[in-house]
């Protein structure tokens, strides 16, 4: 991080983002980025729940179970 420029890592992909709108962001924080700007810190516990949901969806798609009706 330098002044208000930062590099963010999104599941392995690196992007540039500005932290002008999130002055409290520090190295290592989880952030939500929109149109090149970090706009919110992300609560880690809640983020983990979302990632868990996404993982469950992938697992579900890979198994032979199907929801009927």
């Amino acid at each position, binding site marked *: 991080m330098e002044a208000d420029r930062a590099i963010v890592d999104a599941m392995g992909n690196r992007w540039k983002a*500005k932290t*002008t*709108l999130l002055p409290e962001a520090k190295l290592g924080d989880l952030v939500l980025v929109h149109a*090149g*700007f970090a706009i919110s810190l*992300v*609560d880690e516990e809640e983020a983990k729940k979302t990632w868990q949901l996404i993982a469950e*969806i992938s697992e579900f798609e890979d198994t032979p179970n199907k929801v009927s009706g």
Partner: protein
Amino acid sequence: MLDRINKAQSMMNAACKAMGRQVHIMEVCGTHTVSIFRNGIRSILPGSLKLLSGPGCPVCVTDQGYIDIVLELADREDCIIATYGDMIRVPGKDHSLETKQAKADVKVVLSSEDALQLAKDNPEKTVVFIAVGFGTTAPATAVVVKEAAAESIDNFCILSGHKLVVPAMRALLSGKNHNIDAFLCPGHVSVIIGYGAFAEIVEDFGRPCVVAGFEAVQIIEGLAEICEQLSSGKAELKSIYPAVVTEKGNAAAQRVIEECFEPVDGFWRGLGKIEKSTLKLKDKYERFDAFKRFDITEAPAEEARGCRCGEVLCGLIEPPECALFGQSCTPQEPVGPCMVSSEGACAAWFKYSRKRAQKP
């Protein structure tokens, strides 16, 4: 995950059965529109619950008059048009930015910063940044306007089409022929403006407002919460997206918007003129205002013949009810912005739904 979906589904079924009437919930966020389609959410809702897609796609709600101005500016040899991707395929009278690209200087940018950089890299031309978007995107524009001012980048200006969602919600509810019972509120707009911004909709119109995230489970739980409220006669403001949404929102973003912009009356496709619904640069930054620099006044213009994007945007019709849908209006050859934009209801319906207009 399935547990959560099943629970939410049971709640919705029970609540809707208890109400015994058709219930209409409107979402006002393009990202919700797409997620709802991509996940097939409508297919698991009770039959009496109808999900309406509202004016949540920023490119779609942009009036045709604004589009015409963008295309005129593109014709100027002294201008570079810098725009987010969605805008380039929106049709004007006989061209879009895309078809003009052979002669005009049009660059797609991922952020407002890129637009400012274009101005720095091309001092002999004027860069016009097509600043379209709701509350989530407006702060990004404000930041670069301030930077342009601080660094005296005078060959940079913005054509502001930034719109405010709450006045549009009020306009919809004040109209005569709507049937909206509640709103599913946008996730990332709420990150900026805070979910408290929707309190006035609850207080003044007695409609439940629930902010939800974009994953399928989050949307379904948001809908279940709304159904619960409706069946118990409640109208409350709630956010179920605690990961990033707070009541007050992002103070730094709100400050920078307040510093650079003021809300003025503006034209919306489908909704006409809405008071204090569009952001205009304050006088302090007027030299970066493309409307002033090129002496342009925005006036509403007519949509293409037969185009019913306006009605789609108000949730009055569903895309297949438009005679052009799937016939003369397709993603390959769109007539209106709802079919062009990645967040447009018509594009989403075309891509994800099996219902198509019947061929004559």
